[in-house]
């Protein structure tokens, strides 16, 4: 079962195990410069608000109501990272516009063993973008669906789905209980571009942004560990923040700071080290995508604002037993 609680998606499988719970939330963050330099992990700037799609169907495309799921607001060119919480192991597939963020392949509901098209929680505490190379991702950046920037449009030629898609598979009970018997498992713990005024809601998708040092870990539990008969899905529709109040009646979130302003304020970035886990190699399909900055140049659009290089000087190290600082305020 899937609940929405305090802007978190909470996946539960009580019929499987009382501890089979996994939470996913979406964190506001800095958009790192899209300049082919590698950056450390940016901070959290708080959770994105989420609403049930079915509570706000008037004024939304009818297919959004068919999808069900939830709504989330993002400004054009705003970035996002996905935060995973919970101690019970899950295999989780993430796609944007139905393009798998780990492999670049088209969405399927089932898990694929090779190449591994899912990530494993709690070993993977978060996902900031598309897995383009071993140890490198390109940041998730929101762009209007239909302008040619999103991973979906670049790979399929179509602007059909947008948003984010998630499916989770819990570990089989027998595997979990065997694991718990002898082991302890880790516990983890106002960018506003002018947009066209549109009468219809502005559908957003995610596109590849700047490069960030982040590893997506191999499944060390083994494919047989996952209960393929138990799964739960969610379609996360992304709506332009400027329309959030019109559609939901809720206040529009403030715009996030630029990477330059944040860094000049002396605030920390992060590195995460887990030398016990093996990272995936990355997807050549995803590596071949144009980043937002590159696409902007190719399309002859004005260069991106707030894309100056930064040199983070304060970088906090995190390991498997620490948690990324969240709710950084400034």
């Amino acid at each position, binding site marked *: *079962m*899937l*609940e929405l609680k305090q802007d978190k998606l909470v996946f539960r499988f009580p019929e499987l195990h009382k501890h089979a719970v996994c939470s996913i939330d979406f964190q506001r963050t800095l958009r790192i410069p899209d300049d082919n330099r590698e950056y450390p992990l940016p901070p959290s700037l708080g959770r994105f608000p989420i609403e049930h799609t079915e509570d706000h169907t008037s004024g939304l495309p009818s297919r959004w109501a068919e*999808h069900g*799921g939830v709504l989330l607001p993002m400004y054009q060119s705003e970035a996002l990272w996905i935060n995973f919480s919970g101690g019970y192991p899950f295999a989780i597939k993430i796609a944007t516009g139905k393009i798998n963020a780990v492999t670049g392949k088209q969405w399927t509901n089932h898990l694929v063993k090779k190449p591994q098209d899912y990530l494993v929680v709690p070993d993977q505490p978060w996902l900031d973008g598309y897995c383009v190379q071993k140890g490198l991702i390109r940041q998730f950046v929101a762009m209007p669906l239909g302008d040619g920037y999103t991973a979906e449009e670049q790979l399929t030629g179509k602007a059909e789905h947008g948003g984010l*898609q998630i499916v989770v598979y819990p570990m089989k009970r027998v595997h979990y209980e065997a694991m718990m018997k002898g082991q302890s498992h880790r516990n983890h713990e106002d960018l506003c571009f002018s947009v066209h005024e549109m009468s219809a809601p502005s559908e957003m998708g995610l596109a590849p942004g700047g490069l960030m040092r982040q590893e997506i870990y191999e499944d060390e539990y083994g494919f047989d560990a996952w209960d393929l008969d138990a799964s739960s899905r*969610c*379609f996360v529709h992304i709506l332009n923040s400027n329309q959030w109040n019109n559609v939901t009646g809720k206040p529009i979130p403030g715009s996030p700071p630029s990477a330059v302003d944040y860094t000049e304020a002396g605030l920390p970035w992060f590195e995460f080290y887990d030398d016990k886990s093996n990272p995936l190699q990355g997807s050549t399909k995803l590596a071949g995508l144009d980043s937002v900055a590159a696409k902007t140049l190719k399309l002859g659009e004005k260069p991106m604002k707030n894309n100056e290089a930064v040199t983070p000087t304060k970088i906090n190290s995190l390991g498997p037993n620490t948690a990324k600082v969240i709710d950084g305020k400034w």
Partner: protein
Amino acid sequence: MKAFGDHIRQVRETLRKDNKTFSLRQVAGRIKVEPAYLSKIERNVFPPPSEEVILKLANELGLDGDVLLAMAGKLSSELQQVILERPKLFADLLREMKSAPDHAILRVVREVKDGKW
């Protein structure tokens, strides 16, 4: 149900064994009440404090705010507001669920719909 004061004292003292910052004086300082006042609450000399102070205590001691309020014989103003907005609906629901086992109550949740995609 254990008295409110006894409960918070027990929790605080247990925490203090491993962490000296949970002394009466320090906890009182963090929740912005006089130590003498907190001491009287813990000894049940004074009745439980206001909702605001109870929630600060819950946060400090790692306790659930709603449970601690209930121990003090209170319902949060937030929950009161929820009920008052649709009193008949919630009154009927609560009466119906009054004797239901825990697992049945837990199933009364709002699920996120998964449709066709």
